[in-house]
């Protein structure tokens, strides 16, 4: 366990959402004692919702979060230069959205620092989920708007064309995010985007391509609802990387994000 998670343990309220989200277990509390039934888990109230941004909107809250995050990052990376992030006019000169973006950027800086300096993927899993939720919603809204204006590929069905748009633009956005924060990704890394995840068996080697994988969690952004009965999802779990969870991110309008915990291994081969 890393320093960041230990430090914030004292400040947790006994009820309600945690003060900070440092692990997937904080976002999906059911994952702590997942009964290995692969039942989809919903995110905790407040992680994505309006209340998640309430503190950022409040000036004192934003300042408090800013300095707490900077402190945490510097504990891991003493060379971190927060002066470059602090806006010239101070936080009080920012709009509500500007404060939210500033705090989100710092959270990502923290995730990148823990990943690069300590090989800790916990923060990166959480912040990637936070980013993907927003990116998927934006991409879906854009794609629907384009479809309504008949500007998508005419050879595809409306749903396919929207799905392709979301899939492609979110993938590109995630690469941009990781590049801009200096997070290494790709084949052989602990973070992958649209790369093969191999499964070795007695009969040889096969692979699946999750939209992204960060350590022991695979991420799939999609329009459709998926469960453990989907061959694709069982394939993700069978990979040599042994994911403990597959996180599904759907547009909020279609149901939003949820997590599928790893089922017993026997389940992964039941439908073969």
């Amino acid at each position, binding site marked *: 366990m890393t320093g960041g998670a230990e430090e914030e343990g004292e400040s947790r309220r006994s009820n309600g959402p945690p003060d900070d989200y440092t692990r997937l277990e904080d976002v999906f509390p059911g994952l702590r004692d997942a009964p290995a039934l692969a039942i989809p888990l919903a995110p905790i109230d407040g992680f994505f919702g309006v209340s998640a941004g309430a503190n950022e909107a409040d000036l004192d809250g934003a300042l408090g979060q800013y300095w707490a995050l900077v402190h945490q990052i510097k504990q891991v990376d003493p060379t971190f*230069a927060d002066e*470059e*992030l602090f806006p010239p006019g101070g936080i009080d000169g920012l709009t509500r*959205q500007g404060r*939210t*973006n500033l705090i*989100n*950027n710092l959270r990502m800086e923290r995730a990148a620092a823990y990943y690069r300096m300590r090989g800790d993927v916990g923060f990166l899993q959480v912040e990637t989920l936070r*980013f993907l939720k*927003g*990116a998927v919603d*934006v991409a879906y*809204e*854009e794609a629907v708007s*384009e479809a309504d204006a008949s500007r998508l590929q005419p050879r595809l069905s409306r749903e396919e064309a929207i799905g392709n*748009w979301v899939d*492609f*633009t979110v993938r*590109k*956005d995630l*690469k*941009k*995010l990781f*590049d*801009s924060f*200096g997070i290494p990704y790709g084949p052989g890394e602990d973070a992958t985007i649209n790369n093969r995840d191999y499964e070795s068996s007695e009969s040889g080697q096969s692979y699946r391509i999750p939209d992204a994988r960060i350590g022991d969690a695979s991420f799939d952004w999609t329009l459709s609802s998926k469960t453990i009965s989907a061959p694709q999802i069982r394939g993700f779990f069978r990979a040599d990387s042994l994911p403990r969870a597959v996180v599904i991110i759907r547009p909020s309008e279609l149901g939003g994000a949820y997590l599928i915990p790893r089922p017993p291994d026997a389940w992964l081969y039941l439908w073969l």
Partner: protein
Amino acid sequence: MKPVKMTIPQDIGELLEHLIWMLLKSPKFIDKTGRFPFQDVEYVFRELNEGLSNVRPTLGEERYHQLMGMSDRMRALFEADPENTMGETRKGRDIIHEMEDILRQARQES
């Protein structure tokens, strides 16, 4: 402000991916996620042109200069029609398709 590491295409496949993304996001390339406030026409075309520079040996000099010229023309068209109301954006997107064809041909020949 902190310098941002760009996502520069490293091969023809990544260049094609970048062009498709440009097709979807043109003419203004505005980011609506709030995470990439630095993203604008200048930034996106720098990514494209540096990507073309990365694959210059594969393209050959003639094709490289042809594609750079097309990139410049496309940028001028997008900047002339930022609201996509005058038809110039459509012409810029047609150039993207032409660039895709040239890149695919170069990939086949390499």
